[in-house]
């Protein structure tokens, strides 16, 4: 996707701002260091300095609006998009705001979440996992899993997909588009379009389509049209560009279902709002189970939607520690990872100011993770904000540690987690020894791992 300048995407990608204006970027592009809107270490723009000063005065999650009227979380977020899309985004924001107070809409959505998606998802006390983390003296934290893996389609993604499809219907849009990498978001989108009888077009890189043939078939069976994208590296970034191009062209009839808390305002806010049910249920269930709040909440971070979904409810509860876990891939020093908040720098990607993995020339660094869902070079702007505020802490876990955690939960609890979720689970190895006896840890089990059994088996040699 290239809401911002073309130079911010990979060197061989096609630009996408207007359909007729596509031009090839040569394989050795000229350096745009002085021009690029993404901020490099050597030349911080004046505007960011001013923004930084302004934010210093309000380092307070409680008083700062998340987001403000411009879609900013502090200095992050915003709407870095071509003029053509501004109207659509404004319309979307207005529609969302009005529906947030529309009882009929809320009632319909609640009914669908209950009967179709299968909410509320349980808060499960992982007895054997807790036992595993007990120290020699028998003390240790209590580990609970928020079971988003039990949702229809097997992940948290459907919460947002279902709500956006309903929103699109309210807006009178009959056509839905989305992009997908490994296919999970595509399948979730195709699922809800089938449910609501909406036309569905999924853009997928041709290379990804080959690797994920069954997911492609699944989407088609669900009635979606899967359009192969051959440009660039024929993967997710290129599929995103195509999706944007489509949206720009068909904005009157079409709604773009963005799968995470990234992108231009109002998407980060909207997607968070549609996932916040996770945190709301957790609060209620925690009260029922132990009469209190969680002490620590842990979630994996790709774009950041499942984490925002569980964090949001507790951001203003200072006593609740919020921990996000990114993918360290082959190691933070290997250059093959997706640890945006640890290793990234601030810039604009996909329409929002946020941390992102970029080189000195502001070119996107190709991320790597064994799990497709965490394989994203950016991160939701709200996470960037929470990091800078110090409200949330962000760590990273390698592929190998994630695979170990995948195996551990399968063997100890009979729950096969998604490889994405396994990153959060792996962090428990480092976290639990530091926690006092009886600390309540809630981990967002964001998805099930049926889709990953083949990947894992190669590594785990079963």
């Amino acid at each position, binding site marked *: 996707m290239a809401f911002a300048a073309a130079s911010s995407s990979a060197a061989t990608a096609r630009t996408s701002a207007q359909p007729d204006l596509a031009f090839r970027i040569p394989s050795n592009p000229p350096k745009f260091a002085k021009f690029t809107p993404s901020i490099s270490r050597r030349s911080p723009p004046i505007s960011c300095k001013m923004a930084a000063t302004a934010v210093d005065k309000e380092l307070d999650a409680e008083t700062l609006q998340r987001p403000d009227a411009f879609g900013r979380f502090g200095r992050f977020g915003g709407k870095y998009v071509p003029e053509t899309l501004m109207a659509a985004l404004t319309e979307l924001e207005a529609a969302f705001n009005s529906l947030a107070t529309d009882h009929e809409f809320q009632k319909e959505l609640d009914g669908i979440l209950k009967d179709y998606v299968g909410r509320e998802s349980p808060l499960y006390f992982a007895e054997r996992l807790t036992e595993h983390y007990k120290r020699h003296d028998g003390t240790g934290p209590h580990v609970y899993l928020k079971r988003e893996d039990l949702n229809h389609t097997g992940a948290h993604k459907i919460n947002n997909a279902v709500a956006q499809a309903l929103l699109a219907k309210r807006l009178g849009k009959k056509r839905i588009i989305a992009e997908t990498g490994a296919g999970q978001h595509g399948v979730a989108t195709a699922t809800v379009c089938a449910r609501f009888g909406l036309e569905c077009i999924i853009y997928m890189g041709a290379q990804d389509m080959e690797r994920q043939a069954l997911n492609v*078939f699944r989407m088609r069976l669900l009635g979606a049209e899967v359009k192969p994208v051959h440009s660039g590296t024929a993967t997710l970034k290129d599929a995103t560009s195509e999706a944007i191009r489509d949206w720009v062209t068909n904005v009157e009839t079409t709604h773009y279902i963005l799968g995470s808390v990234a992108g231009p305002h109002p998407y980060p806010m909207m997607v968070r709002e549609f996932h916040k049910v996770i945190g709301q249920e957790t609060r209620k269930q925690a009260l029922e189970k132990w009469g209190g709040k969680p002490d620590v909440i842990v979630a994996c971070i790709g774009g950041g939607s499942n984490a925002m979904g569980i964090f949001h409810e507790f951001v203003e509860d200072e006593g609740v520690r919020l921990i996000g876990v990114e993918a360290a891939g082959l190691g933070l020093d290997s250059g093959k990872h997706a640890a945006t908040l640890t290793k990234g720098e601030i810039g604009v990607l996909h329409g929002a100011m946020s941390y992102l993995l970029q080189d000195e020339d502001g070119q996107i660094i190709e991320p790597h993770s064994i799990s497709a869902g965490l394989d994203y070079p950016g991160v939701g702007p709200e996470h960037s904000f929470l990091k800078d505020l110090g409200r949330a802490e962000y760590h990273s876990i390698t592929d190998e540690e994630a695979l170990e955690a995948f195996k551990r939960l*399968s*063997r100890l609890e009979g729950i*096969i987690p998604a490889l994405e979720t396994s990153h959060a689970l792996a962090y428990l190895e480092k976290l639990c020894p530091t926690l006092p006896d009886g600390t309540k840890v809630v981990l967002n089990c964001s998805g099930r791992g049926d889709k990953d059994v*083949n990947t894992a088996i190669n590594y785990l040699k079963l």
Partner: protein
Amino acid sequence: MSLQTLSPHHSISLPSPNPNHSNGLGFDWPLRSVRHEGFKVCSVMSRDTRTQTQTQTQTQARKTDVLRLIDEAEESLFRTGKFGRFGGIFVPETLVTCLKMLLSEFNLCMHDPLFQGELSAALRDYVGRETPLYFAQRLTDHYKSSRGGEGPDIYLKREDLNHGGAHKINNALAQAMLAKRMGRRSVVAATGAGQHGVATAAACAKLAMECTIIMGNLDMERQSSNVLLMKHLGAEVKSVPGTFKDATSEAIREWVGDLERKYYLAGTAVGPHPCPAMVREFQSIIGIETRRQAMEKWGGKPDVLVACVGSGSNALGMFHEFVRDEDVRLIGVEAAGTGMDGETHSATLAKGEIGVYHGAMTYLLQDHEGQIIGPHSVGVGLEYPGVSPELSFMREITRAEFHTATDEEALDAYALLCRLEGICPALEAAHALAHLGKLCPTLPDGAKVVVNCSGRGDKDIETVSKYQQLKNGSVSDRNKSNHPTKTTSNVVNI
């Protein structure tokens, strides 16, 4: 003990004790059903006046008669292990003690509030119950559209949303908890489609028990994704030649070889008493929830319940709650495979005859020599030559009706539900959904139909993909068989 219920002046010839048998017990297990020189087993049974005779039940029972029969069966069940003349404990003597102990433990835990509390909590927090009763608007509209907007309202009981992806876990978890309570450390189970294997492996992992899953090699090929899941969950997966029925025989054999340590976790409502009753009890949560949800949603009961029938666990789980509600129609749908004319189907209640199989008297698919006919279906979980004795009973007293759906109809139903509701059902459940095509045109406007969506269909995506490719291929291919290659086996039941 095992032959007490048969009248003395006939014989069902059994294989003579074989002292060389590997398990050292001197018996082959399970028993083979054999005809006695021109007499069919069922006509022999009809001389037993202590149970309901075939002649009597063939006359159209008045409604109160049906209720009386059900009450009688329920009353005698725990004493005799029989549903009318079906069921029983046709096992070698060595196993009788074990089964009696199992029965008494089962009775104890059913009345133990602590056990029930733990089980409820596990069903809620681990399995994800209660499962929703979902109004399938677009599916309903689809069937209404061919009748000018009139037709039944179709609801799906979403057992596909359970942990593990099917209803199997309701029973697997409860029995694993029972096994643990009995002090067993190791569980052995047989699985067909793999769902019961996955559920058992998951439950054993959670309860820190050893787990051995036995699966037929033909099934392992067709449901390979489930095999991977079981291995990830820490189970040992053993292959035997054949399919589910062969796996079941082997699992029971393994159990018999180590009765002190091992627990045989029956996945479905077949086998010797108390297995069918136990499995039915643990699955009956499905029907109990459905009753309450129906009351909440439309202030009444379902008019029709539809479920697929392999051995019968999901059907019984749904039906049991409503068996005394005579205004609720109970419909089971079996697998007609590639067609009812040949032998490539699994329609036991439609085409079977009564005999003894895996320890119980029930309908089964057998040839004129009493050899088991290897069943076939694209829904691997429906491939069982026998059926629950309780369903055999319900068929006999005409409390439930049984129909069939072919492979093709099921595959088309799978695709239809995907397209209309974004739900991919298991191919087994798709058989129940396929029957809606015949059922809905006959129902009055607004009738409430509840279909048990017993599992999700991720495991079947490859099968469906191949079928669609063949279907969209050359026209000449349409007349050929459209399902993956499967050899039917006339394996002697040992």
